[in-house]
Every structure is written in structure tokens, then in C-alpha cells.
């Protein structure tokens, strides 16, 4: 299989139209000065090729904010498993968000498998877009090494002055590229450019945290139940934003809804957050994480310690969304740096 192609920039519109003829298309659009969101695209002009990480990560397309799992009838006692899915192509997914998808995959394929998630993932085509420089100061994709494309895409776009260099990740990606007839096979000069770019990127993206990649877990273990967190979360409002926007958070709540006639109903799943007051409450009103500060420490452990033990992966992609969106201006980068100052490794 030919792996590398070139697409002239003026053919991008044709390519995206071709995608639209095959499936629905979702891509980033501008929502405000600093806000972008992945949305279904009808008007190709709306797509923002260069964008700050979107308000919500692409997880919303395979683990939707709200979804119906089961429909039931109280009289007949019949239940039906519901999966709503569609053929969808995501265009412009940043490399950090690819890693977010890989984290969720690791969780969802485990038994009991999340069938709804997996079905939706199956129908998804992912076209990634590599960043050539930092999106903003909140990103920590340098230390997390997520500024470099790894895997998890069908097609990868890398941008140069007049063209995109294309890397094919899967057979599906290869089919799309061939069928569109818009691409040329990449030549030596293109590979030279790619090597130069990747070297330049190693100079631009540097560890943003004063610890090595491998030390991050140790940092958490040492900090966990100590005073090292002192003062860091004093302004946390437990609003839940940092988890809702995180590409690797997947906690949800399940509720039943029923029609007014109390006959037909459905079981719904909605995103939940460990920052919410009710999250760790159990029968009798006991709350395992009553203190806001402890909920934040838990969040950090859920990114840099527990998933490493379980899946051998950090569940932080360095996307910076949690810091960018926090109204209390609590920054992951600053927090990690403060911990590394306070803790002897």
C-alpha cells in the first residue's frame, strides 16, 4: 500500500466535497474569539483549519453528551437496546485528540464492552491534522509527546506552504484517497520537507513541566496524600468544566425518563463528573469526596497515576482544555510545576 501522498492546497475544497458525497462531515468551526467546536458541516467555507482545541473534544461523536440506551414499555415489559449511529468523517482532528481517542478505546473495549461506543467508532473515519506550532500557552503536548502523530487516524494531513503531505493510516484511508483521484504520490523532496518540519517541531515543542515524562506518575504517587497541593485548588468552584472538556474523561450517569402517560420510557446516559457534589455520594448521604480539593486531587490521579497502573498510559493528552476553560484560572501546567517544586523525586 502506498503510504504517502500530496494534496495541492487548492484541491482541499474538492477533497472535502468528495468526503461529503460519501458520509456526513464534521470539522472545527469558530464559535467565538477563543472558542471553536466540531460541528456538522454543510458549508465548507465555515471550516477553521487552524483552531484552538475545540470546547468539547471529539469524544462527543462516539460517547455523546446524552444518549438513549434502552427503550421500554411498562405494560408489555418489552425492552429494546438502542444505538444511534451514522457514517461520519471527522476532519481536522489534532494529534493530541487522537491520543484522547486511544485512551477511551482502551477503556471501552474492556469487558463489559461498551457496544454503543464501539459501534459508533466503527462508523467513524478520522482525518487528522498535525499542528506545526503550539496552539497556546495552556498546551502540554510537549512533555506528553502528543504533538507528534502516532496512530489512530485513517488519514493524516501535514501542512506545508502550498500543499498537504498525506499519510495513510488504514486501508479505509487508502480507499478514500484513491477514489477521490485528487492526490499525487509523494516524492523525495516532500519527505525532505517533512523531516525538516519534524526536526523544527522538536525545537518548538519542549517539556512544559519540570519533570521527565516517566517521572509524572511518581510525582503523583509522592504528592497524593500530602500537603503538596496546599493552596492550589482554593478557588475551585467544582463547576465540573475541567472534566467535561477533557478528551479522556468518560464518567456518566444513567437515568430513566418516561412519557406523561407513564407507559413508554427510555433509559438515558448523560456525562457526569467527579467534580460534581453528588458524584461520590452514596445511600445514607455519605460523600466520599466531600471536599472540593480532594475531588481535584482525584482528577489528577485519574490522569497521571491510576490509568498508568491499569492501561500503561497517561490519560492526559496535554490538550490544555481543562486549564483553558477553568473560570478560576487553575492551570494544569502550573499545578504540575508547583508539585515538582514541592516534591523531591
Amino acid at each position, binding site marked *: 500500500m502506498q503510504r504517502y501522498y500530496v494534496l495541492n492546497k487548492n484541491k482541499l475544497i474538492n477533497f472535502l466535497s468528495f468526503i461529503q458525497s460519501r458520509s456526513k462531515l464534521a470539522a472545527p468551526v469558530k*464559535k*467565538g*474569539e*477563543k*472558542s471553536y*467546536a466540531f460541528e456538522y458541516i454543510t458549508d465548507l467555507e465555515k471550516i477553521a483549519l487552524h483552531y484552538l482545541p475545540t*470546547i*468539547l473534544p471529539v469524544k*462527543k461523536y462516539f460517547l455523546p*453528551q*446524552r444518549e438513549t440506551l434502552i427503550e421500554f414499555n411498562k405494560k408489555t415489559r418489552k425492552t429494546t437496546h438502542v444505538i444511534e449511529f451514522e457514517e461520519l468523517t471527522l476532519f481536522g482532528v489534532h494529534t493530541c485528540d487522537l491520543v484522547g481517542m486511544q485512551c477511551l478505546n482502551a477503556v471501552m473495549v474492556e469487558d463489559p464492552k461498551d457496544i454503543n461506543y464501539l459501534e459508533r467508532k466503527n462508523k467513524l473515519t478520522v482525518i487528522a491534522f498535525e499542528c506545526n506550532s503550539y496552539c497556546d500557552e495552556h498546551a502540554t503536548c510537549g512533555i506528553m509527546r502528543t504533538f507528534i502523530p502516532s496512530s489512530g487516524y485513517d488519514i493524516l494531513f501535514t501542512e506545508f506552504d502550498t500543499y498537504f503531505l498525506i499519510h495513510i493510516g488504514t486501508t479505509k484511508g487508502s480507499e478514500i484517497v484513491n477514489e477521490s483521484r485528487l492526490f499525487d504520490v509523494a516524492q523525495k523532496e516532500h519527505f525532505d520537507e517533512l523531516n525538516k518540519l519534524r526536526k523544527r517541531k522538536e525545537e518548538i515543542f519542549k517539556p512544559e513541566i519540570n519533570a521527565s515524562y516517566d517521572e509524572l506518575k511518581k510525582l503523583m504517587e509522592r504528592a497524593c496524600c500530602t500537603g503538596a497541593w496546599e493552596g492550589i485548588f*482554593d*478557588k*475551585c*468552584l*467544582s*463547576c*465540573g*468544566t475541567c472534566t*467535561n*472538556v477533557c478528551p479522556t474523561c468518560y464518567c456518566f450517569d444513567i437515568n430513566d*425518563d*418516561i412519557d*406523561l*402517560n*407513564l407507559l413508554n420510557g427510555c433509559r438515558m446516559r*448523560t*456525562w457526569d*463528573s467527579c467534580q*460534581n*457534589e*453528588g458524584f461520590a*455520594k452514596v445511600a445514607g448521604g455519605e460523600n466520599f469526596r*466531600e471536599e*472540593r480539593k480532594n475531588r481535584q486531587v482525584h482528577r489528577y490521579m485519574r490522569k497521571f497515576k491510576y490509568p498508568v497502573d491499569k492501561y500503561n498510559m497517561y490519560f492526559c493528552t496535554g490538550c490544555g482544555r481543562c486549564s483553558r*476553560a477553568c*473560570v*478560576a*484560572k487553575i492551570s494544569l501546567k502550573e499545578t504540575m510545576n508547583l508539585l515538582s517544586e514541592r516534591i523531591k523525586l
Partner: protein
Amino acid sequence: MKPKVAFFDFACCEGCQLQVANFGEELLDILEVVDVVNFREVMSENGEDYDIAIIEGSITNQHAVERIKKIREKAKIVIAYGACACTGGINAMKNNFEMPEIMHYVYKDDAKYFDTIPTKAVDQVVKVDYYVHGCPVYPKEFVDVLKCVLQGVEYKVPEKSVCTECKLNENECMFDKGLTCMGPITKAGCNSWCINNGNICFGCRGFVENPAKNAAIEVLKDHGLNPELIIKKINMYNTVLDEKLKKKGEE
């Protein structure tokens, strides 16, 4: 037999009852499952029988105290409907002043003719079974509450902030627009109604259960709001909740 529902007004603007008229088609579905026997002040509370009393408004004088007690005796279920009934609402702002001072401010020399007490939420006088928060109420939540009433199960007001719903709706955050917003410390349940429509959250549903009040004041200060205004913003819908929190803290 359909349960009989009666609406009762206390101190309020009746805007929440007006919401019922905005239900559109859903109203017809509602009328199929309940019998409305008393709407606005058309009938007296001693008139017809009712199973479910929907209370709009806060308790602001002795007469209202007696009246709500009578309603409670008669009703099987009491629903506090709207911010005034659930949390005292805007009416409770007066509790931040000395009673004679605020009475004189409103009624001038005629103040002596009015019997008024510090504003109370309905549950400060009688037991409340269900709450429909908001100023005005969010129609979908009212229907959700009604379904719980009909099934005889508890309705749980979401124990999370308006931000959680706002994020699920992927709105641009008001703080990113250079504005401030009460969403982070206000209870969810309205599906971030105002932000979806381009407005900030005023906090009309009241504080989340365990609000980070001091932190919120600091955060709003960091975003350039002056401290006096912050307190006013918070008091607008939270005076009674604040009184309750203080009491809980003292216990």
C-alpha cells in the same frame, strides 16, 4: 381518577404561572393526566378538593403563613413552583435590610398599615415535597417533576452546576466573552437556558448544594467585578439559601 391540581399564588409576579401558558402542545398532554381545579385566584383554598397544591410565590406576611398552613393540611402533595416559592427568590433581597428601614423605603409613611415579615421560602413554613426551581421555571423540568409526582417517586434536583449543562451544550463561555456568569455556583436543571440564548446566568435557580461562595467571590473579583456588585449579584437569588447555609454551619 386523575389527581386534582390546584395552583396558589403568594408573593410573586405570576410569571411562573404564565410559563404554563407557554407549554404549547405539552399542556394538552398534561391536562390528560391531571385535573386542574384551581388556577390563579379563581377559587378560594377552602373551595374544591385538591390532591396536589402547586405553590407560586414566597411567604411575606402573617396572613400568608396561615394560608399556606391550611393548604398544606389539605394537600397530599405540595410543590414549590418557581424561585420565589423554592428559595424566597428576588423577594428575599429585602431580608438584607432592617425591616423598618426597608418598609419605609417601600411604603413611606403608610408603612404602619402593612403587615410584613422577612421573606420565607415555602419550606421554611411547611413541608415541601417537590421543587421546581427557576425564575421563571423551566417548562421541561416542571414536566419531569410532574412525572415523578404521578409515579410517586422522588425528584432529584441535579447536584451540579449550570456549567455542566452549558458545557454539554458546547456554548462559548461567557467568561471568554469578557463577561461574568453565575453558572459555576448555580444548580443545574434548566439545561443552561439563558446561555443557550446568548445571556449570562443570573443564578435564578439558586446556589448548588454546597457552594464555594468565597471562592466564587474571589473568581469574580479576578474577572474585574467590584466586590459590592458581586455581593448584590449573589444576594439576588440566594439570600434565603445563604441564611440556611449559615444556620447549618452554626449547628
